[in-house]
C-alpha cells in the first residue's frame, strides 16, 4: 500500500507568528522528527517506556510530545502510548504515520497496525499475553504466522525479539521493557548513549545494572537481524 508520508507536517523552519508568550515554543529546537507508538498490555511498563524515550528526547534538545492512557485502561487492558519527536502540535499519531512501533505483545502489534506504513519499523516481543475472553473460549488468539504476515504487508521492516527470555537472561523478567527500549535504540534518532543515561537516572540504584544488561541484550538482539 502506498502511503505518502507527511514530512514533519510542513512546519519545519517556518515560524508561526503570534503575539503572545503563550505560543508554543515548537520552533526553536532541532528539526529531527520521529513518531513512536508503544503498544502492549497494562502492567508491562509502557508508561515507563514512553517517559524514558520522552526524557531522552528532551535531554537531546528535541521537542517531544507524549500521550498516555491511565486509570481503568491499565487493569490488564490495552495500553498505547505515543511519543512524537519534532515540531508538531497533535499529541496523537495519525493513521500510517508511525516511524517506529514498539509492540510488547504480538496481538497488540496487530491492533496498532493502522499506524504503520511502508516506512515503519516494527519491533515485536513474541510472547503473547492471552486475553481472558480467549481462556473463556469466546474468542481465538490469532496464529503468530498470521500476525507477522499481516504486519509485514504494512511495514518496511519487521523485527521479532524474545524480550521475556532476554530479560530473564539479564537477571529479571520485569526488565522486558528495557530490552525493548534497547532494541528500539538501534533505529531511533535518539542516541543510544542518551537513552541509557536516561534509564540510569530513572531507575533505583539497585536495578541500574540489571537494566543496563537488559538494554544491551535488546540492542544486540536486533543488530544481527
Amino acid at each position, binding site marked *: 500500500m502506498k502511503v505518502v508520508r507527511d514530512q514533519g507536517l510542513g512546519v519545519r523552519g517556518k515560524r508561526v507568528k503570534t503575539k503572545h508568550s503563550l505560543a508554543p515554543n515548537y520552533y526553536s529546537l532541532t528539526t529531527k522528527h520521529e513518531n513512536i507508538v508503544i503498544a502492549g498490555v497494562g502492567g508491562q511498563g509502557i508508561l515507563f517506556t514512553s517517559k524514558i524515550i520522552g526524557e531522552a528526547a528532551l535531554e537531546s534538545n528535541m521537542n517531544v510530545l507524549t500521550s*498516555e492512557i491511565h*486509570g481503568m485502561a491499565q487493569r490488564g487492558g490495552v495500553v498505547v502510548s505515543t511519543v512524537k519527536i519534532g515540531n508538531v502540535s497533535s499529541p*496523537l499519531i495519525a493513521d500510517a504515520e508511525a516511524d517506529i512501533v514498539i509492540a510488547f505483545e504480538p496481538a497488540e502489534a496487530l491492533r496498532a497496525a493502522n499506524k504503520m506504513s511502508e516506512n515503519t519499523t516494527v519491533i515485536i516481543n513474541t510472547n503473547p499475553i492471552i486475553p481472558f475472553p480467549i481462556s473463556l473460549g469466546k474468542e481465538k488468539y490469532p496464529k503468530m504466522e498470521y500476525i507477522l504476515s499481516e504486519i509485514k504487508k504494512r511495514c518496511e521492516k519487521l523485527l521479532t525479539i524474545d524480550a521475556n527470555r532476554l530479560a530473564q537472561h539479564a537477571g529479571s523478567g520485569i526488565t522486558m521493557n528495557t530490552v525493548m527500549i534497547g532494541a528500539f535504540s538501534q533505529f531511533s534518532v535518539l542516541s543510544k548513549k542518551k537513552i541509557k543515561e536516561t534509564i540510569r537516572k530513572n531507575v533505583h540504584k539497585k536495578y541500574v545494572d540489571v537494566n543496563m544488561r537488559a538494554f544491551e541484550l535488546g540492542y544486540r538482539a536486533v543488530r544481527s537481524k
Partner: protein
Amino acid sequence: MDILRNKGTLLLLGNEAVVRGALESGVNVATTYPGTPASEIGDTFSKIAKKAGIYFEYSVNEKVAVETAFGASISGLRSIASMKHVGLNVSSDAFVTMAYSGVKCGMVIVTADDPSCYSSQNEQDSRYYAMLANLPMLEPSTPQEAKEMTKKAFEISESLELPVFLRMTTRVSHVRENVRLGKIVKNNREGFFEKDPVRFVNVPAGARIGHPRLLKQMERAEELSEKSGLNRIIKVGKKPKIGIITSGVSYNYTIDAVKKLGVDASILKLGIVHPLPKKTCEKFISSFKKIVIVEELEPYLETLIKALGGKNVYGKLTHDFPRIFEYNPDIVYDSLAKILGKKVQKKNEKIVVPSRPPVLCPGCPHRATFYAAKIASKDKAVYATDIGCYALGVQPPLSTADVLVCMGGGVGAAGGISKATKQKIIAFLGDSTFFHAGIPALVNAVYNNHKFVYTILDNRTTAMTGHQPHPGTGITGMGNIASNIKIEDIVRGIGVKFIEIVDPYNVKETVSEFRKALEYDGVSVLIARHTCTLLEIRKGKKKTYQINQLKCKECRICIDRFGCPAFYVDKGVHINPLLCVGCGVCAQICPAKAIEVIK
C-alpha cells in the same frame, strides 16, 4: 523533587504542569478527590506539599474539596481544587452559590473531562457548567499552556473575586511536553477571615444581592477576556479564506491538519471559553464566508457562534464533525478536507484483533467476594455496583454488575429496587466510595427500612485511581498520621443491626456470611476486608500456585466461574506463575483439590 526546580525546562504531564502553575502563583491550599484523568494533580501535590510549604488534602469528596478551597480563599489565601468531570457534578451545588458571594483570594477549580470515556461513566462536556454557574473558564491546549493558564486563572480569579474554572481533557492532562519553568512563589502568609455576612451568608436576601454582583463581574470578565491575550488568532498562509474557531486540544489537531492540507486559514484559538470575547468573535466571523468550529463533545462554541450571527457555520450541528468521542488527527483532517472539498486520506484496512477488556487483577480480593456472593445467592441476586475497580466485575464470568450509575449510586438504587421487587439484592461499593457518597444512602436505607445486602469492598485504599489514602487508612494527603475512621463504627452508629466483617480470601466464611446477610430482614452490611493485592505484592510474593495435572479434572470452575486471569488453557488448564500472586482462593474452590503451592 524535580518539579520544585526553579528554572529550566522539564518534561511535564499536563496535570503536573497545573501543579507547577499553582506553585508559581503562590498557592497555599490544594484539595482534590482523585479521579482519572485528574488524579496526578492531587498526587503531585501530595508528594511535594511538605517541601513546598503548602497545605494539601485528599478531601472526602469533590464537594468538600471545593468548599475547603473556598474557605481558604475567603480567608485570604490562594487555593485550588481539582477533580474529574463527574466530580464537578458532585461539587456543583457548592460552586453555583459561591459564584454569588465570590471569593477573596484567587481560587481555581480544575475539571478534567474524559472524551471517549477512557475511565469514566460518561463523557459530559463541563464547559456548560461555566455557563450554568456563570463563572469564567479557561481551556489550555498543551501542558505549557496548562501551567500558564493556571497562573492566569489565579490572576483573573483575584481581579474579579470569582472562582475560575480550568478545563482540562485527557489529551491535555495525560500529555507530556517540555515545559519552560517560571519562578516558584513561596507564600508563607497566614490567612484571616474578615466577617462580611451580607456577602458570604447566602440567605435569600444575600443571594439577591449576590446575583446582580455576579452579572456585573461577568461583564468585566468579558472585557478581560478580550484583553487577556488568551484568545489568539493564528494565520496560516497569506490569504486565509476560511475561519476556524477552536479551543483546547482540538486546536493542536486543527493546526496540524491545516498545514497538512496546505490551505490558507485563520484560526481563532479561544483560551477563555466562558465568557466569550464577543467583539473578537463577531469581527472574526464577519471576515470569512465559511466558519468551521472544531471542538470535542458538545456543540458548545458552535451554538454560541451561531447566536452571535455566524452564517455558514460548519460543525457538529451540520454533521460535518462527530458529536461523540474524542477527536484525533485523522478525524479533524478528514472533516476539514470534506468541508473544503479536498480528498480525504486513504485509510489502512482494519484488522480484527481479539478484544482485551480490563479485568480485576490476579489475586484481587473483590473477585473472591464476588464469587462468594454468587454462590450464596445461587447467582439469583440483582447486583448493584459502583465506581471503582469492582465495576470490572461486569466482565464474564463474574458478571456481578447489573446497575452502575455514579459514586454511591448503586447503594441508592439498591434501596429503590428493594421497594419495587421481592428479589434478593446485593450492592457493592468500595471503602473510599463509602466515605465519598455511600453514607447518606446507608442512612436512607436504614431510616426507610430498605432490604438489601450493602457490601463494602474494603481494600484499604482508593485503588483504581492509584492508591490514594482515604479517611479509613490512617494517613493524610500530607503523609501525616491521622485518626483512622472505622467503617464498622460508622455503620453501627447509623443503626445497622446486621454487620459482619469477613476476609474474602476465606471463601467458606464469606459464603456463609453472605447467606445470613441475604436472609436478614432489613439492610445488612457486610464488610469484605482485604488489602489491595497490588499493595500486598509490593511487600513481596509469598507463594505461587500450580495445577497438579494428575488431579485436575478440567471442570474449569477456576476459569469459567472464578475467572482469575492467571489461568490459561493450553492442552489442560494452567496457571501462569508470573501472574499468580499466591492468594490461594482458587485452591479453596477447586473441587478436585488439584491446585497446589509450588514447593
